[in-house]
């Protein structure tokens, strides 16, 4: 075992470079700045480009430029910066440009504070920019996943020609854990659609503009079809002790780590509880929720936002099972004891009559 102790933010850049990323455009913001700092150190050493942009608006448009030229490129920021980038993200989705964006979330709204929060869920998972588009969103919950999912993000971005987000709370960015990287770097090829300043690519055009209503509709529907394929193929979730779980705890990022610790303790006390952790927030792991709805009695969503993830959970369950909710915000984290108290409370309540529940499930299908 040869693992290194490393911050999540640093792991992102090292993994990105190994995955073929050769351009980083950023603007400093806590708690994401280490990503830009590591990029500033390592991009020039590895044949890549690093520019500290004048704003997040400029940074995301530089990303647009690099992606247009067929270069694997990324940026990183936190809530306020991601808000400013939404224009460019919409343009990139419209022009079908791949890129990777890391959002190391801090507390909002407005300037909020620099504590960890998960309240960027809506603006990242639902798309904060204008128009009909989606971004694929990966939610790491460890430093190892910061590395692994960054590499996956570049693959997905190229496969779907679409922006892909790494959505991690400030804790996942700031904490250090052992991490292991691939032993070889990924070779990349110039995509045939890129505008690279060569004779072969001279006829290429990168644009999100389409004046003709019918042609734009066709384009939008083609994007939508692409997202539907992603929903079928790219959904990822981790289940932990769910096989016989009556209570399913749902959370992502740092919260999922807390849920595991609580589950371990509650299991020791004989409570049948498990964890369902969405790894892809878009596409959302709907099938896993529906399957667990057949066996579990109740779901409990724990998030560091006032009710964002829970909307997707409720949509996925579509009324099959009740959904409980626990939230801490403003830089606070749901404590082990708070979550444990909720689990104990749910275990104390009498489960609904099995026959009636089965009937409801049957009706839903």
């Amino acid at each position, binding site marked *: *075992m*040869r693992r*290194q*102790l490393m911050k999540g933010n640093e792991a992102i850049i*090292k993994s990105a*470079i*190994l995955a073929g990323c*050769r*351009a980083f*455009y950023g603007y400093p913001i806590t708690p994401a700045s280490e990503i830009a700092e590591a990029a500033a150190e*390592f991009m020039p*050493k*590895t044949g890549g*480009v690093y520019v500290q*942009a*004048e704003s997040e*608006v*400029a940074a995301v*448009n*530089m990303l*647009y*430029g*690099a992606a247009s*030229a067929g*270069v694997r*490129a990324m940026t990183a920021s936190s809530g306020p910066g991601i808000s400013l980038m939404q*224009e*460019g993200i919409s*343009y990139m989705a419209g022009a079908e440009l791949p890129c990777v964006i890391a959002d190391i979330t801090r507390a909002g709204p407005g300037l909020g*504070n*620099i*504590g960890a929060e998960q309240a960027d869920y809506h603006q990242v998972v639902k798309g904060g920019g204008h128009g009909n588009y989606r971004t694929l969103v990966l939610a790491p919950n460890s430093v190892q996943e910061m590395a692994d999912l960054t590499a996956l993000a570049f693959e997905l971005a190229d496969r779907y020609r679409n922006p892909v987000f790494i959505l991690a709370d400030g*804790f996942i960015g*700031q*904490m*250090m854990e*052992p991490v292991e*990287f691939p*032993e*070889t*770097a990924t070779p990349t090829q110039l995509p045939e659609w890129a*505008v*690279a*300043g*060569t*004779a072969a*690519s*001279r*006829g*290429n*055009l*990168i*644009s999100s503009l389409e004046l*003709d209503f019918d042609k734009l509709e066709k384009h939008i529907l083609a994007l939508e079809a692409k997202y539907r394929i992603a929903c079928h193929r790219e959904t990822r979730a981790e289940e932990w002790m769910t096989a016989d779980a009556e209570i399913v705890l749902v959370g992502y990022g*740092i919260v999922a*780590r807390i849920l*595991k*610790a609580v589950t*371990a303790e509650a299991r020791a006390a004989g409570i049948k509880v498990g964890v369902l952790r969405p790894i892809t927030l878009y596409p959302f792991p709907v099938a896993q929720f529906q399957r667990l709805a057949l066996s579990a009695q109740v779901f409990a969503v724990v998030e560091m936002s006032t009710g964002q993830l829970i909307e997707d959970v409720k949509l996925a369950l579509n009324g099959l099972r009740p959904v409980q909710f626990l939230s801490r915000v403003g830089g606070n984290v749901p404590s*082990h004891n708070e979550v444990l108290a909720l689990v104990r409370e749910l275990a104390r309540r009498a489960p609904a009559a099995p026959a009636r529940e089965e009937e409801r499930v049957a009706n839903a299908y």
Partner: protein
Amino acid sequence: MPTESAGEYAPVQSRARSFYGRYERKEDLEHQTHFCPGCGHGIVHKMIARAIDDLGVQDRTIMVGPVGCGVFTYYYFDVGNVQAAHGRAPAVATAIKRSRPESIVIGYQGDGDLSAIGAAEILHAANRGENITVVFVNNAIYSMTGGQAAPTTLVGMKSTTTPNGRNAATEGYPLHVCELLSTLQAPAYIERVGLGDNKQIWQAARAIRRALANQVHGLGFSLIEVLSPCPTIWKMTPVEAQRWVRGVMENEFRLGVFCDRTNERAVSADLRPVTPDPALDDLPRILGVARERLPGSEAQAFTPGREIDLEVRIAGFGGQGVLLLGEVLAEAGLDAGLEVSWLPSYGPEMRSGTSNCHVRLSRHAIDSPLVASPVVLVAMNEPSLRKFDRSVRSGGWVIYNGREFPADCARDGLNVLARPFTELADELGEKRAANMVMLGALLEITGVLPQASIDHALARLVKNPRWVELDQRALARGRELYQGSREG
């Protein structure tokens, strides 16, 4: 239609090779542009296409189009085309040029695009001295959206959003982009030209060609501002509009060269070092993640006779080495073959002077890296002690930096080692080593890590040999203190 043998007029009337023969990306009327009669854009387009032809860079050229009347550059230019968001062409062009330095990148922008919404992007691209060419078409108005005021609209000039004419008292004065950018040190060449008459037009063509040649020669940022007629929005005939450029606009926007550093650049451009990209196989080593190059030894064959699940909270003032203490502990744990996590509190409290971190060491995968109920609390000052002492598990330890442990913090089941660690470190020659004295005590109390792992961790994390030696003495002092407390 172009004719190759039209005598002396051939260079003017033939189609530039860098233009498409038919504008197939256009919805209809593929043989003509979308520009109004008398519009300056068509003339400027032609100048750019000619310059591309003359310099022989058609294959290498990438045109970055704006939002506004110039948005359809890709209809006309038979080059690589990228359409940018409103005002962002300089940012887009920056990235293209940086990643494809062999390409010839032209940013084409109007006055609303460049001087209003994109003011920051053009300023900073110019200030970075990006080796790109910007053609800035100034017609003093937002044309495509129907004639709203621009930063370049003249005082008194009517627009749909200044119906009584631009009022300097409330809307300010026309923005002079060339004058503004020429105060910067980085740009290579900045010139303002006009389309007011044939003489001006010829000068404009020369300027655009020169700006493009500058890029081909690697001289740096060039911008050509072109005063350009907009008969439709100005509500003039094409002839009147051209006269207005010459007679009115030109009085506000002086023509001429505002900045020319091309002579000094001609030398330095050749001197720029060219470093080849490293081989892919070399990247893990460069990134410091190549397994065979990782510092230290293989994980220790360290198999303690008991379960390890050490949860530690370390807290103190910023500058006391709270985070480093935790990092050494985590790094040593990893070296000893344990699972570890280190999580800093990086919240606003950091700014007001206190700092803390969570460290876990375990023989099993670590579920939560947050330490809610520590087994050991290292409190480097009294506020930190009071913040966290209640959370320490029964049977756990508090290592406290103070001569006396506050009586009201004491409770049954709480083990305490209270010593003036800062003073003890000072006796060793460095107050700032108090964190390592406390770590020494922690290691001795818990006994979970072999000294070799601590040595390896220090070697990795502390670069200055003087500090390594000092830290080792501090750790030893901390161990002695705990042993002494047991004997006493």
